[in-house]
């Protein structure tokens, strides 16, 4: 809420003669009283709750190397340039974050690094979306059009988020135990291969499990016909798996410590492990899962400050630096912006800027099944 502008509007109306002196002073006095009563005590609480003021913006992301990249390459330079602080929070998953947002007051959370179109639709359906003023984000013109179009389709041509990066959730495997030839031959079915019982991992997230269940039963994940077969594949995987991992850090730990030999994994995290010297392979099986991430502005946020931060983060220098830091290709169109050699070598990078080679969740299909499938997965995951 921009109080300054509201006072200025009052002053302008008074100067124009639209308000009497008595009314003008009365309104200012009332505003002062409200600010005094609610502002004093609650401002202190709000500070502790890390809510945003126009001098500060709250950003929540995935933690780990991703947040480190944001902090180093985006937030610190942004604060130096604009004087606006970025309060940097993290979450373990989009579900957990949504529950926190749902329990908060509007304005407490501002920008979130959300996963894909699925979350964009979900947040919009819960009336948490905003309407960005694209004139304030000129760097948006450099973004891959296909990525923004899917958002515009959801929010009637407007945007509540800017696409920021993309990646894949494909098969990560320890080369000491599994050869490149074997992974190519078995594809997603290696995750239900009894030969690796107790050495298989998997993300304990319903969408990913169902996607891979569909691949393991030779079905189209965006048009599953035999759901029972998918649940059976998920059960088989569950019984063979050592553990469902719940965060990028846990995924990296399980692979690095050789607790598991194979799992599906996030391309950037696997690249980080490879860069550390771990002999891991990463393979996109046919129908492998691609995703895009966006910077979503939540309802009640200080829009001007948020738009300025989004524009700053889409500056090619910043976006490229963050991409190199977090190991995910930026949403910038390679045909419009010259990307670095390091970015071009990142897993999942698409030089055409169309992303036509990746498979994404079909939002209407997955959102319409969310309630039933997430609940059923909760049961299957626990032994049913």
């Amino acid at each position: 809420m921009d109080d300054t502008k509201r006072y200025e509007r009052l002053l302008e109306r008074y100067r124009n003669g639209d308000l009497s002196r008595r009314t003008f002073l009365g309104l200012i006095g009332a505003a002062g009283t409200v600010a005094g009563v609610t502002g004093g005590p609650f401002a202190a609480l709000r500070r502790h709750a890390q809510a945003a003021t126009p001098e500060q913006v709250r950003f929540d992301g995935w933690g780990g190397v991703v947040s480190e990249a944001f902090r180093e390459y985006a937030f610190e330079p942004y604060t130096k340039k604009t004087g606006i602080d970025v309060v940097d929070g993290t979450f373990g998953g989009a579900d957990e974050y949504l529950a926190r947002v749902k329990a908060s007051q509007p304005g407490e959370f501002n920008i979130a690094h959300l996963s894909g179109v699925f979350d964009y639709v979900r947040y919009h359906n819960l009336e948490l979306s905003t309407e960005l003023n694209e004139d304030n984000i000129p760097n948006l013109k450099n973004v891959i059009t296909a990525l923004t179009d899917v958002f515009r389709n959801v929010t009637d041509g407007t945007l509540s988020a800017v696409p920021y990066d993309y990646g894949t959730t494909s098969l990560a495997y320890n080369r000491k135990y599994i050869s490149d030839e074997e992974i190519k031959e078995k594809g997603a079915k290696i995750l239900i291969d009894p030969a690796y019982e107790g050495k298989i991992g998997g993300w304990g997230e319903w969408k990913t499990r169902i996607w891979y269940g569909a691949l393991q039963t030779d079905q189209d994940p965006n048009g599953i016909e035999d759901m029972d077969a998918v649940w059976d594949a998920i059960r088989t995987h569950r019984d063979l798996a050592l553990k469902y991992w719940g965060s990028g850090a846990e995924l990296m730990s399980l692979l690095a410590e050789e607790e598991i030999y194979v799992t599906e994994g996030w391309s950037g995290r696997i690249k980080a492990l490879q860069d550390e010297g771990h002999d891991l392979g990463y393979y996109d099986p046919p129908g492998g899962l691609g995703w895009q991430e966006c910077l979503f502005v939540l309802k009640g946020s200080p829009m001007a400050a948020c738009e300025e931060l989004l524009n700053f983060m889409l500056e090619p220098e910043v976006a490229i630096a963050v991409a190199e830091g977090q190991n995910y290709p930026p949403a910038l169109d390679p045909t419009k912006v010259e990307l670095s050699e390091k970015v071009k070598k990142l897993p999942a990078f698409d030089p055409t800027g169309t992303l036509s080679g990746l498979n994404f969740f079909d939002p209407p299909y997955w959102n319409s099944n969310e309630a039933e499938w997430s609940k059923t997965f909760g049961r299957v995951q626990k032994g049913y």
Partner: protein
Amino acid sequence: MASLDPQEKPLRPWALLSPALTAILLLLVIPVCFIAVYSFWLRTATGADIAGFHLDNWAEVLGDAFYRDILGFTIWIAFATTVICALVGYIPAYFIAMTQFRHKAYLLLLLMLPFWISYIIRTMSWINILGTSGVVNVGLQWLGLTDEPIQMLYNQWTVIIGLVHFLLPFMILNVYVSLYAIDRNLIDAARSLGSTPWQAFTEVTLPLSLPGLAAGSLLCFVLAAGTYITPLVLGGPTDAMFANLVFDAIITQLNWPLGSALSLVLLALLGVLVAVYNRFAGMGQIAKSFG
């Protein structure tokens, strides 16, 4: 001198109690009422809630075998943890209570040391102990006892180990307080009347320490049954406990009404347990342990 007769100033006890009653009202009663109201709401497909009085969540929670089974597993884990804590915790409690060591206070301080470290860190430390490249596996291989790492992590036993690690100090403290309060003359009398040391222990010391053992067991059981982190960190795919169901309902499915009903079921179960304990042993024993 001011009169202490409550008949003269009947509101005085309430005035003195009002800070505590206010805290209980604001921090416990009202939140539980909110949860109770929420449990009768319904969740829509988009995640929004429908207010009203609907029994669907309760019918599901009370009628579905899935929830009963997980509740049964939770009770089993909490029971096993409590029994192990009682067996393992009695010995150090006995030692601390009976030792003539001059600096007994330091031994009690050692019991408190684990609390200086985050519960999550303490739980995760077992990964470095029991993991494939953990201390135990490396030690076994170094000694030539095994050729390759043994898979010890991510099952219900590691969940129990993690919980015992967390809850043992609660048990030891409760038993210690009980043992420390025993009149030593009773043990001497038993010995002088011909009891062996073992008989003196089983006939005098153990029965007199039972209130402490019961208080420690209650605390361990209640805390273990409500745990969420330990099965998440140290459990396998199917080692979920009841609190994990609450997490799933509220966080993953955004179904707060169902999550509310589930949390009230757990609250009711543990509440009954505490009420039974209070009926037979009294809550005073637990208060003694915390000074």
